[in-house]
């Protein structure tokens, strides 16, 4: 099957065009297609083909070594693939200019060559490599990775050209063309979808991996993304659920940890040793600071990893109730860690935002390194906050960030300035919450107001499925803690546009994911709060009722199937009684009494014959008994009477132990009747 004219040349030109070697490919195409015009032919022997194949093999190896040395392993394979049409060209050229226009198959396979040596007379198999070469040219063109629509158009055209040549003649050309166009469109839609699918999968896999590697926040140190380049992508995964008391406004900041020293894009918590907190007598209430007169409440449900976790607490939290853990520790900066708890905890927090149990400000809460002071101080000076009262300073700084800065998840290069924070404050003026929080803390410190860096979550998204809020991974937040009026207060300067910016990055599959998360959460609540979760149990009952009904139906249906057999058996049992009252059984009973055992496999007739009972004219009685027993018509009353009388007579004859001449073993002797 030779390829149609010019197809091979076109495929080579396509390869050359994609790979950037159009002139080389044109030359090769000319040589191949020229074979149709030139009558000159060679007569290569099979061994000549083998030599050419070996030559191509050596070329392949040399090229691979070259690519491997210059590009590395992955690129070497792709590079090699891209040049395969050139490497295999001598083989194809030899074929098209040979008299047979085919080549010996053994040239391509070492095993065949070896076999040929063993059996030289065996018939040789030839192969035409034009179509495989055509496929190779197209595949090699793909390795050039030229991502224009022309590539697909080229593939489609060449394939359609080749397929037209081998089409089934039983169908009309119009039908064929329609089907080809349809295949082309389907292939196009498929490859666009496939490419997007890979992108989505890659992103999801990264997310899963990040999630898998996620650890609870380190209360001693946090490394920010300040100075990183790229874009921040956080997932829609729901981390915990919050039900605040009615009237509590969002956004609410729930803190996990707090830090007091900034060095090279990282925050550290100095002097933050954890101390054990003892529970109240009920075992589930924990007082983490002195109680306040007025309090607000909040209920948080979160998962614990292997029973451990860091609690999410609002500023001024003083009591945590309904927390079923065995151990709790707290550091002076308000971070609370729990251990040995269940998989899911739901705890109630009582808090007063106007008080604070964190350690009072120290010297570290005012520290700014010299490198940061160099650009922070001029800004503070420009803002004219150096001699303002603290409340005014806060207002000024807040409006500074709200007005002159923009929230962005894109992490830009710091540019010429070495310090990314400087770049944020002076040049770009856009960044994410870590920039805002860090800059705020440092600005406050520069004017002598103690400040700390807090990390946690912003509670802002109301759940559509329950009365409460859901907090996702992308709601992770950082803000400043400022010490004014004798207490530490939350001070969040990140522009409020961050809510919408974060929302934009959410996945279109979010509703599905949220539903799944909600169901999992409900199940987990039931699982971890069994016996205490009345509402869940109620739902569970509703869920179980159809399940039980289904099982019952299956069970019942099963018994319906089995019932006919049982009924049939019973009927048979009843039927088996037919003739069971036959008097003949009395004879059997009597004979058994005298030791004439009947074997289980023996019929009555064979038994009678074995024990020589037939001498006593028992056969007519046995015949009537059989008919009574098995004949569907049964026996007449007369016959029954005969049976009865006959049996009576016979029973009288054998009313005493019978003589068993010559035999001692039971059931094997012969019955000779009454002496």
């Amino acid at each position, binding site marked *: *099957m030779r390829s149609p004219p010019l197809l091979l040349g076109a495929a080579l030109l396509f390869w050359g065009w994609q790979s950037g070697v159009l002139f080389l490919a044109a030359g090769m195409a000319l040589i191949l297609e020229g074979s149709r015009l030139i009558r000159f032919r060679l007569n290569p022997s099979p061994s000549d083909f083998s030599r050419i194949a070996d030559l191509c093999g050596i070329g392949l190896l040399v090229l691979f070594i070259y690519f491997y040395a210059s590009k590395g392993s*992955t690129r070497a394979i*792709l590079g090699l*693939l891209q040049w395969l049409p050139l490497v295999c060209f001598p083989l194809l050229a030899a074929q098209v200019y040979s008299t047979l226009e085919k080549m010996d198959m053994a040239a391509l396979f070492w095993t065949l060559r070896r076999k040929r040596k063993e059996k030289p007379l065996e018939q040789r198999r030839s192969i035409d490599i034009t*179509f*495989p070469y055509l*496929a190779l040219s*197209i*595949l090699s063109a*793909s*390795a*050039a*990775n*030229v*991502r224009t629509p022309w*590539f*697909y158009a080229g*593939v*489609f055209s060449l*394939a359609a050209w*080749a*397929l037209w040549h*081998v*089409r*089934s*003649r*039983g*169908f009309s050309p119009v*039908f*064929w063309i329609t*089907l*080809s166009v*349809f*295949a*082309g469109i*389907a*292939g*196009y839609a*498929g*490859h666009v979808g*496939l*490419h997007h699918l*890979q992108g989505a999968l890659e992103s999801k896999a990264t997310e899963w991996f990040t999630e898998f590697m996620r650890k609870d926040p380190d209360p001693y140190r946090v490394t920010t993304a300040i100075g990183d380049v790229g874009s921040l992508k956080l997932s829609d995964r729901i981390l915990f659920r919050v039900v605040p008391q009615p009237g509590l406004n969002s956004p609410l900041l729930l803190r996990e940890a707090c830090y007091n020293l900034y060095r090279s894009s990282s925050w550290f918590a100095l002097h933050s040793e954890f101390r054990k907190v003892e529970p109240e007598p009920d075992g589930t209430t924990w007082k983490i600071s002195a109680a306040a007169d007025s309090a607000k409440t909040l209920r948080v449900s979160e998962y614990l990893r292997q029973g451990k976790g860091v609690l999410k607490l609002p500023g001024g939290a003083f009591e945590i109730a309904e927390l079923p853990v065995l151990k709790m520790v707290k550091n002076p900066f308000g971070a609370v860690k729990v251990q040995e708890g269940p998989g899911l905890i739901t705890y109630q927090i009582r808090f007063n935002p106007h008080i604070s149990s964190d350690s009072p400000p120290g010297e570290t809460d005012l520290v700014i390194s010299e490198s940061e002071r160099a650009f922070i101080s001029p800004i503070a000076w420009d803002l004219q906050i150096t001699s303002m009262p603290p409340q005014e300073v806060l207002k000024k700084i807040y409006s500074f960030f709200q007005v002159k800065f923009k929230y962005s998840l894109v992490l830009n290069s710091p540019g010429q300035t070495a310090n990314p924070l400087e770049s944020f404050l002076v040049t770009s003026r856009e960044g994410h919450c870590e920039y805002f929080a860090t800059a705020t803390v440092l600005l406050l410190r520069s004017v002598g107001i103690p400040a700390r860096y807090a990390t946690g979550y912003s509670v802002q998204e109301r759940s559509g499925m329950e009365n409460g809020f859901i907090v996702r991974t992308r709601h992770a937040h950082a803000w400043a803690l400022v010490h004014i009026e004798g207490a530490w207060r939350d001070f969040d300067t990140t522009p409020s546009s961050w809510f919408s910016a974060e929302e934009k990055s959410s996945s279109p599959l979010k509703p599905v994911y949220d539903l799944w998360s909600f169901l999992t959460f409900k199940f987990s609540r039931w699982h971890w709060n069994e016996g205490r979760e009345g509402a869940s149990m109620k739902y569970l009952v509703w869920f179980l009722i159809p399940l039980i009904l289904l099982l019952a139906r299956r069970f019942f249906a099963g018994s319906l199937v089995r019932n006919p057999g049982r009924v049939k058996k019973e009927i048979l049992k009843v039927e088996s009684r037919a003739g069971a009252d036959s008097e003949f059984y009395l004879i059997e009973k009597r004979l058994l009494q005298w030791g004439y055992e009947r074997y289980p496999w023996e019929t009555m007739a064979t038994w009678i014959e074995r024990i020589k009972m037939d001498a006593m004219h028992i056969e007519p009685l046995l015949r009537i008994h059989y008919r009574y027993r098995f004949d569907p018509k049964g026996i007449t009353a007369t016959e029954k009477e005969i049976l009865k009388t006959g049996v009576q007579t016979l029973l009288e004859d054998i009313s005493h132990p019978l003589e068993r001449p010559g035999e001692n073993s039971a059931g094997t002797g012969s019955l000779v009747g009454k002496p």
Partner: protein
Amino acid sequence: MARRLLYLSFRSVDTVKQWLARRFTKAGLLVLGGLAASAVVGLDTNQTTAYQIFTFLFALLLLSIASCIFVRGRYEAHRKLPRFGTVLEPLTYRIVVQNKAPKRQTGLLLLENLEDRLPSFNEFLKTPEPLERARNPFDRVIGYHRWLWLTSRKLGAGLSEQPLPVLPPGGEMEAPVEILPLKRGPLRLGSLTIARPDPFGLYKSFVTIPTSGSILVLPKRYPLPPIQLPGTRRHQPGGVALASSVGDSEEFLSVRDYRPGDPLRKIHWKNWAKAGRPIVKEYQDEFFVRHALILDTFQHTGQTEIFEEAVSIAASFVSTIQTQESLLDLMFVGTEAYCFTSGRGLAHTDRMLEILASVRPCTDKPFSTLHPLVMERTSLLSGCVCVLLAWDEERKTLIRHLKGVGVPLLVLVVAEDKAPEPPDSAESPLEADDIHRLHIGKIKEGLAEL
């Protein structure tokens, strides 16, 4: 358990291979290969654009297969089979196909289905490959070579797709089908499949017609030179029709092409000069001699090639001796004796060839069981052709005894190509002239030298 797993995996791979080869056209297989290659190369859609080739080929194949589901025909077909075929000789028979659909059908292909194509688990377990001992331990444990050998042995015939003529609506056509029988014995043909390629010519839709048929494939036969067995006159119970006499006529019969082993004196020099290739003269035999044939089937080593050649040699004698005005009507095959005393007609030749077509090696009994069977009938023998699988003491004893009772013998021992010559000539009274060793691969030449 491991063996069964291996067997199942070989079997499933074979089935998949067979399915691919039957269902896909050559172009379809190339597209399938392209699909696999583009899947590997295009695994990362950012590195190459091969994934675009993959999706296009995938769509193409899906459409091909889908179009086959909707385009089907209705047919009826039956075979017109001959009774016999011969191993490795193309056999042509006819198949009548009727189009039951109200539509003209073109481009149809016909495929034969063989029954019992793959070896059973028991066969795989218990039938070692002839040269298995020489294989390395890994090959012996895995048994792939054994599987290949068994499948090639089980394969009854080489089949190829046969194009069918255009079938008019409701019309009936007769198409010739050529197959190549690969082994002797009954060749069971199963259902017939009528295939129709899809519009792209990649995938075939199948309509299978349940039918069955059988052909008896006779062993391969070699041309034999006139056999000169010194016969003795004996009382023939069949009367004059079976009377035996010995002799050769010098009456010129014809000329034919030279075959390796033809004596030089038979070359017709003038005809060679005319034809440009060696030509020899053939002479007519005038008398016939009554021969018996002993085919040795006692083999323990499982060397099928030797056994098959022996059967072929025996079949050559059965089919040739009759035509040479000789008579061969007594045959010892394995532990059985077959006697055909129906006269000089050729009817019993078919029967004898049928027996030879179905003969299997006897692995559970020794050669000595043949001894009394032959000796009982020595009175009937006026000449005897023995085809032996080995030349050991047991066989020598039989030959010695036959010689002892004066039966003229032609002993043919089939041996491997490089087997050494028998070292018996010095001590045994057997005449070396009567014992011929025929080597695998050179049987034809060996027979011509007789």
